[in-house]
């Protein structure tokens, strides 16, 4: 194993991590502020990817596609919040899970009805395609570098929003004591809709960016949703900082696990068995990480003690 390959894998892990952060930021905000478990978050990711593919296909512009994805996902999030989610805040988590699971089915079949059953085409724009050569002679796809940059920029923006702005103060206050900020005259339902739309837009952005290098198809959001839940549990539910650290941890653990474990087992097993055992263990790695974090810190890395 050369250092170049190792650095390339670390970059891959980082890229996967920032993508997971975009997904889990919305999820953790929604849970932290409104106490709502939103299983339909993966559908918003899918809506972002489909909207990007549709707009980019019609206009030929990837950037317009991104704008379309943000708009469509935020709009879908706001509409869903106002029509369905709003009725669920006072209910227990089981009702929320049931209702948002129903939303997954509605979104999936609705998307199939609109776009058909076959995967859509969304490609990396020409100006971001192909590999670039980094120092040490590392060949790395430019588009993945762009995802890392955009992800980090969004993370920085989100931290600034929450730490520095009036809306951020309200969000933090909402996490601390929901009833109190309502009593203080903040229009809580507007705040909730705004947070939900913000989370949805982030998921849509992740879907659109990843859609260009993956398959834009119905049901694409659910595998990512599971990982996003792992991320927010590791990071501590409700904490944006936790989501960021958790996402990078999960991204790096998953990528490096897939890469290093088969090699490690290869040291004392024959290659075929080593790949099989190594990859089986690699697919468990992030859940082992989650279990280990929960043993040491039951509320997650940055979770508030309850």
């Amino acid at each position: 194993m050369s250092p170049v390959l190792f650095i390339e894998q670390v970059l891959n892990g980082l890229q996967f991590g920032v993508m997971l952060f975009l997904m889990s930021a919305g999820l953790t905000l929604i849970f932290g502020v409104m106490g709502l478990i939103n299983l339909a978050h993966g559908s918003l990711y899918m809506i972002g990817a489909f909207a990007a593919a549709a707009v980019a296909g019609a206009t030929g512009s990837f950037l317009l596609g991104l704008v379309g994805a943000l708009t469509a996902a935020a709009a879908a999030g706001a509409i869903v919040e106002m029509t369905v989610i709003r009725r669920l805040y006072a209910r227990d988590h089981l009702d929320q899970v049931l209702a948002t699971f129903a939303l997954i089915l509605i979104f999936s079949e609705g998307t199939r009805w609109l776009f058909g059953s076959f995967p859509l085409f969304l490609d990396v724009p020409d100006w971001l395609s192909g590999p670039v050569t980094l120092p040490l002679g590392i060949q790395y796809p430019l588009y993945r570098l762009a995802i890392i940059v955009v992800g980090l920029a969004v993370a920085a923006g989100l931290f600034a929003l929450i730490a520095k702005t009036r809306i951020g103060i309200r969000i933090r206050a909402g996490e601390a004591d929901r009833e109190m900020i309502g009593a203080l005259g903040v229009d809580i339902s507007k705040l909730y809709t705004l947070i939900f739309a913000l989370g949805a837009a982030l998921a849509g952005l992740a879907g659109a960016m990843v859609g260009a290098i993956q398959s834009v198809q119905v049901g694409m959001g659910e595998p990512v949703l599971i990982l996003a839940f792992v991320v927010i549990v590791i990071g501590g539910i409700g904490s944006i900082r936790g989501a960021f650290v958790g996402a990078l941890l999960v991204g790096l653990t998953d990528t490096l696990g897939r890469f290093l474990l088969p090699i490690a087992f290869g040291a004392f097993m024959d290659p075929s068995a080593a790949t099989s055992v190594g990859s089986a263990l690699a697919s468990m790695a992030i859940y082992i990480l989650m279990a280990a974090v929960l043993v040491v810190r039951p509320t997650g890395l940055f979770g508030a003690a309850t």
Partner: protein
Amino acid sequence: MKLKSLMIGAALGALATGALAEVKVGMITTLSGGGAGLGIDVRDGFMLAVNQSGRDDIEVVIEDDQQKPDIAVQLADKMIQSENVNVLTGIIWSNLAMAVVPSAVNQDIFYLSPNAGPSALAGQGCHKNYFNVAWQNDNLHEAAGAYANDAGFKNSFILAPNYPAGQDALTGYKRFYEGDLAGELYTQLGQTDYAAEIAQIRASGADSVFFFLPGGMGISFLKQYADSGVDLPVVGPAFSFDQGILQAVGDAALGVKNTSQWSKDIDNEANKAFVETFQAEYGRLPSLYASQGFDTANLLISAMDKADIGDMDAFREALVAADFASTRGDFKFGPNHHPIQDIYVREVIKEGDVYTNKIIGTALEDHADAYAADCKM
């Protein structure tokens, strides 16, 4: 979610007059979720053949298994016990087939597989009432291995998802491929990011890549592979290059070689008519799955011409004879009721605006599967 459609085709008229359909077919296939494209193609191909036959004695009941084994089992039980079907068909996925087929064929139901061909049902688990009209799972991978020898590949990097069909795929490739392996990787089922694997391919010094990543996994891999700057030749089975997927992959798939028992340019009358009528009926090009559905229905119809479903032994004989015009040209069953057929090498090309495949050679002629010897019927 619950998709229930009762398609009677030309049998509507017969029902109206009170006559019962003679053969009742239960189709359990995947019509929702990420794998729906495959099930829809099988269904459309099957119904096209039924409608073209103009027969009024076939009734087809279609249900969606949602790609879940437990739902497939429930549907099969319902179709056998309360709908009294004679024939089951439609299942796409090997794990669902393993859950449904063994019990169904033991209840005197014929099962005609339009897709899944797990090795367990081809060898010791074979059954006189089970017919596979598509292929045994290993077949297309074996052909890819044979093609790799012809193409002069000496050092392949091979990868597949870590589940039974993925392991069968790599086994099948290695059964025929004679060169060395630069690396062998199992990925997670449903994995969508292949950056880590592509980095290893780049570092491995391989001269070629073989992969089996069906559905969305293949789309992701090919797009990321094309964007990574690694330009080793790629070969794989047709599952990652079917008509439904290619449009989503785009230019990234151009020039890739893949192995298939069917292609739209196989030169025979049945295939030409099939491609033309399928396109006219559904407004899209057929995939290999659609051709398998079409052939399955025509096999059934050919048996109905010869025998009565009430006489199971005679009907089975008629099925074994496989006396129908297959879109694949020559088609016959081996002793374990799996196909003996040619497997072609195709290349992905662009025709106008549409990405599709063109045959460039034959990988294996009259190829049977490796498990037939273990089958004792």
